[in-house]
Every structure is written in structure tokens, then in C-alpha cells.
């Protein structure tokens, strides 16, 4: 594809928007192809690879034994972090975690945490003494747009297929991690003046603000985030919210398919 300078690219995206078209020919609420693979990495207790268009993301789950916090003696913990390292694209630079990578990790983390899909009490082994710490690490290997949805999907898929390595830690038998729900994120980007679903790299380069919506199995909101420069109206939100509901149902099916394995 011809590289357009951002100003020209913005013009082109605006023109396409007027025709209700997108730069890769998709409809406004169409997404790119998604493939999901799980159990794909030795040493990770749960793992997933998501390819969403040209975006490639891995997630891995690890467990550790921890002493619980004194004020929550029967609760384990969950932590989700994302790395946006230079491997992911030409624009990424080495160095300490960028605000963009911190935001990515925290938005994915909140969606999972706030859905309540992990019961922290279920991670307790000996109250006041030993609990599981669950750590989800997400690694973006190729960013060609909409890494938020790819990361959210990889994280929940890795979590839902994770096996608690109790034997290795000498605290019982290995067992599937209990996960009560499948929170899914759907992200929208303002491109050519209107929001579209699952923006690709060109659309992000020439677009404006993003809205990230994480929905639970019942369609409740668990996390919202607006990123980048731009404003939106309540009416615009109502429109994308309906699309998000459908998108999340579809991606949730993808995860469910992997769990039978």
C-alpha cells in the first residue's frame, strides 16, 4: 500500500467516509479476520496467540505463591501487564514502559478484573499464609492496528485455558483455573469523522480518538476508556455501544471454541 503522509491520508479517509467506505474496503462495523490459538507456549501455564489482520499478539499466564495482604487474608491477586516493545513496529522505541503501553495493560487489566471473572477467594490456599498470584503478560509482536482488542482477546483466552501448576509448587494437584465469565473488549476509532470498528494501521495513523468498551457475558459494562485527542457526543456513544454488544458476542464464541480442546 502506498504510504500517505498523514495530512493527505486524513483527506483520503474523510473522502472514503463520505462514501461510507473504508481504506481497505470494509464496512463501518466490519472487522478483519481473527484467528485465535491457545496452549501454544512451553512454560506458560496458559497461553494464546491472536492474529487480527496484520496484528500479532501473544499472552501468557504464570502463577506464583504469595503471602496475602494482611487486610485480605483469603484473597489471591491478579495482575495483567502489556509490553509494547520495539519488536511491534517501526515507531516503537526501546526504553522504560511508555504511557501507551501502560494504558494498554491497565485497560485490559480493568476489563478482566472488574468483570469479576476471577474470584479472588478461589485463589486462596491457606488463609493468611498462601495464595496464588496470577500474572497475565501480553506481548505485542506486530502492530497493524487495534492492538487493544487483540490484547484483550489473547489475555482472556490465555486465562480461560490456564492450568494452575499446583504440583510444581507442592500444594495439591494441577487443575484448571476457575474463570467465571469472558469479558471482551471492542474498540472504536474516529476515522474520517465517524467511528469505525477494528481500525487498521492506516486508519489509526490518520484517525482521531478511540473508545474502548469491555462488556461481560450479560452485556454489562466493566471498563470504558477514551484515548487520544478528540471529543464525542452521547449519541455517538449510544451508536457504537450497540455494535460493541454484537462484536463481543462474536469474539466470546471464538474463546469458547478453544476451551473444549
Amino acid at each position, binding site marked *: 500500500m502506498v504510504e500517505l503522509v498523514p495530512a493527505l491520508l486524513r483527506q483520503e479517509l474523510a473522502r472514503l467516509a463520505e462514501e461510507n467506505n473504508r481504506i481497505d474496503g470494509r464496512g463501518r462495523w466490519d472487522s478483519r479476520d481473527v484467528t485465535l490459538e491457545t496452549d501454544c507456549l512451553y512454560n506458560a501455564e496458559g497461553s494464546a496467540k491472536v492474529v487480527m489482520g496484520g496484528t500479532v499478539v501473544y499472552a501468557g499466564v504464570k502463577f506464583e505463591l504469595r503471602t496475602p495482604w494482611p487486610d*485480605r487474608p483469603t484473597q489471591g491477586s491478579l495482575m495483567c501487564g502489556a509490553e509494547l516493545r520495539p519488536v511491534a513496529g517501526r515507531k516503537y522505541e526501546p526504553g522504560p*514502559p511508555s*504511557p*501507551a503501553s*501502560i*494504558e494498554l*495493560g*491497565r485497560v485490559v487489566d*480493568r476489563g478482566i*478484573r*472488574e*468483570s*469479576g471473572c476471577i474470584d479472588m477467594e478461589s485463589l486462596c490456599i491457606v488463609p493468611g499464609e498462601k495464595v496464588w498470584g496470577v500474572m497475565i503478560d501480553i506481548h505485542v509482536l506486530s502492530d497493524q492496528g487495534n492492538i487493544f482488542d487483540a490484547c484483550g482477546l489473547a489475555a482472556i483466552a490465555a486465562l480461560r485455558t490456564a492450568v494452575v501448576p499446583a504440583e510444581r509448587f507442592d500444594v495439591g494437584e494441577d487443575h484448571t483455573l476457575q474463570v467465571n465469565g469472558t469479558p471482551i473488549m471492542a474498540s472504536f476509532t474516529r476515522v474520517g469523522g465517524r467511528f469505525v470498528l477494528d481500525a487498521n494501521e492506516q486508519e489509526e495513523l490518520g484517525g482521531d*480518538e478511540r*473508545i474502548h468498551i469491555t462488556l*461481560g457475558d450479560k*452485556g*454489562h*459494562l*466493566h*471498563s*470504558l*476508556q*477514551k*484515548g*487520544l*485527542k*478528540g*471529543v*464525542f*457526543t*452521547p449519541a455517538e*456513544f449510544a451508536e457504537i*455501544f450497540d455494535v460493541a454488544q454484537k462484536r463481543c458476542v462474536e469474539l466470546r464464541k471464538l474463546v469458547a471454541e478453544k476451551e473444549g480442546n
Partner: protein
Amino acid sequence: MMGGYGDVQLLNEDGSRLDGRKVDEMRPVSIEAGILPAADGSAKVTHGLNVAVAAVYGPMEAHPRKIQRQDRAVIDVRYNMAPFSTSDRIRPGFNRRSREISKVTAEALESVVLVERYPRSKIRVEIEILAAEAGTRCVGITAAAVALADAGIPMRDMIVGVASGKIEDTVVLDLDKAEDNYGQADLPVGILPNTGEIAFLQMDGDLSPDEYNLAMEYNFKAAKEIHEIMVDALKRRYDGGEA
């Protein structure tokens, strides 16, 4: 959010809240503009027991070069909690939470400041939380908006930080400390009071679509009230000198 450990009662039997507020009533807010002589613009917002101070410097040349934007100013926001602002002291320096809030606050302010008037320049906005009692990111946004106005930076609208949430399955406006700790959801937003647009949006917890709509309705109502207090503060500043 989701921090509730058991059944903490947050509503009285008459439906009022523990501090006596109604479900759609916000905590008291007071604002002073122009309180820091070294800054180009400044403000102090007291919102409940929260105290946030904002200072604005600029527009100035953006450096290093690589942060410059040819067509507009960048807004460089630091949201920082003072070590003594919380119940347990926090170590000085940034953490992941403050970096995320700084990022999305900067993006919200860039959405209202007429940044295209100052190409290649930088506007520094420093938000310092001196006392924290739930909702500091919103109080910081309000303080930043007043400080920007105090610095004479042109904006297409003001921006007001407000939050609603859910406690005991009830949507309420402006969570206080206990409500935040034991509540079920929080929806902080940054509202443009004149256009009715939204420039800042976060949410966590559990909200049905209907609950979301009600919480948003409360937020718009509160934004109008706070906006009046902001305008008053700026008027006092320019009528009466350094307040």
C-alpha cells in the same frame, strides 16, 4: 471498584447517603484561581476533602524537538499525588496509575485547547493532588481547566471533571472515599459544559446499559453546577486581583 469486602452499608434507610447527601447531590466545591505566583496560570480546587492545585506554563517552545508537532501545540500533563495526600504515604515519583491518568488527561485537554494556534509549542500543565478523598482525577481536570483559563490559553469550551458511580445497586453522583472503596462502579468523565461533548471517559466496575445512562445524566447535571463555580472563580480573579 469491586473492592467491597462484604456487606458495608452505604445508604441510610431513607435512601440518603451516609454523609446525608441525596443520590444526585455532589460534595461541596470551592475554587480559587491565580494562587501560584511563579506560574503563568494556576488554580486550587477543593472538592469534598480533595485538594488539587494546577499550574500552567506556556505556551513555550517544545523541546526536545521530537515531541514538536508541526501543526499544533502539545499539552504535557503531569498528574501527581503528593506523598502526604493519602492515608498511607506514597513514595514520591510517578507510578503506572499516575502515568495513565496523565496521558488521558493530556488528551482530554488537547481536545478543548485551541492547540492549532500554537504550532511547535508546548503547554505544561502540572496537577498536584495535595489531599485525596476519591475522585482526584476529576478534581485535577477541573483545576487544570481553570488554570488554563487563568493563563489566558484559548479554549473552545471549558472542561469539567465529574464522576458518578454505583453503590448498593443504586446509581449515585460523586462517590466519596467510603463509597469508592466499597462501591460497585465508577464513571469519571470530562464534560464540555457548553457543547455537551465528552473529552474524558473512563469507567470500571459493573454497570448495566440503563445504569450507565442514569450515571451519565447525573454527571451532566453536576458539570453544570461546577462550571458555574469555575466561572465565578475566574471572575473573582480578574475583578479582585489575586483573590
